[in-house]
């Protein structure tokens, strides 16, 4: 028993199970995504303000900003931002309804988690469908 003499004897203490212990579930994903999309939107909001300042700064600065948005990277970022916006909007409404005590039974909770996740993709795609269908037509 030489090892136990040199090392202090530690009692195994119970730990609360951390994220990787749990099987992934829709309820978990919808909660984590709400925070993640919130951070994405906060960063995007800075770009939104930058766009307003470019618009206030005159035609030249605005066209430089519009060119950035229209670039391949700008389009990818806008697509991602619009999905984050759709998700945070739908899931935010879900949270407000839950604050009112609605939809708290386990089957409801799982179902409306999926509504947020799938609905956000559908809503973002619909929005882009509307914009792109009449874009460039005077």
């Amino acid at each position, binding site marked *: 028993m030489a090892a136990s003499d040199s090392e202090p004897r530690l009692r195994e203490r119970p730990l609360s199970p951390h994220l990787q212990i749990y099987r992934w579930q829709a309820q978990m994903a919808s909660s984590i995504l709400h*925070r993640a999309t*919130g*951070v994405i*939107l*906060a960063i995007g*909001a*800075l770009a*939104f*303000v930058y766009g*307003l*300042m470019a*618009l*206030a700064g005159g*035609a030249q600065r*605005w*066209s430089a900003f*519009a060119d950035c*948005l*229209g670039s391949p990277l700008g389009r990818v970022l806008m697509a991602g931002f619009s999905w984050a*916006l759709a998700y945070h*909007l739908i899931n*935010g*409404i879900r*949270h*407000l309804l839950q*604050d009112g005590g609605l939809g708290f039974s386990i089957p409801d909770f799982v179902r409306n988690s999926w509504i947020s996740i799938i609905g956000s993709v559908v809503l973002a795609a619909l*929005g882009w469908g*509307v*914009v792109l269908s*009449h*874009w*460039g*037509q*005077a």
Partner: protein
Amino acid sequence: MNGRGKEMQAPLKRARGLGSAKDGTGHFIWQRVTAIATGLSGLWLLGMLLTLRSADYAVVHALVADPVNAAVLVAFLLGMFWHARLGLQVIVEDYVHTPLTAALAQLAILFVCALAAIAGVLAVLRIALGS
């Protein structure tokens, strides 16, 4: 027996200021109020963006300069950056455990959100009132 008869403080007084945030229901309520404000004004702005047919300077400038749109934009900027600050604040409270780093992060979040809101409102005013 916990000596309740001798207790001069109400239970609420003892509970106040405890917890990681030192503050509770005020934050909760303002988060919801600003969420509703951001949602309503944001939906208006989304409708505005969905009608857009080009990113032409004159078109976008006129859209933002419209008195109703400009007013909704200002309301949106104030409510949204307030909401963003409240949300980011909670994330720092939950995940940053070093007091100094947490305090610096909270200050940075507050200042960036406030500055962005001021910059956005000023830009809208310049557009709406004509430089």
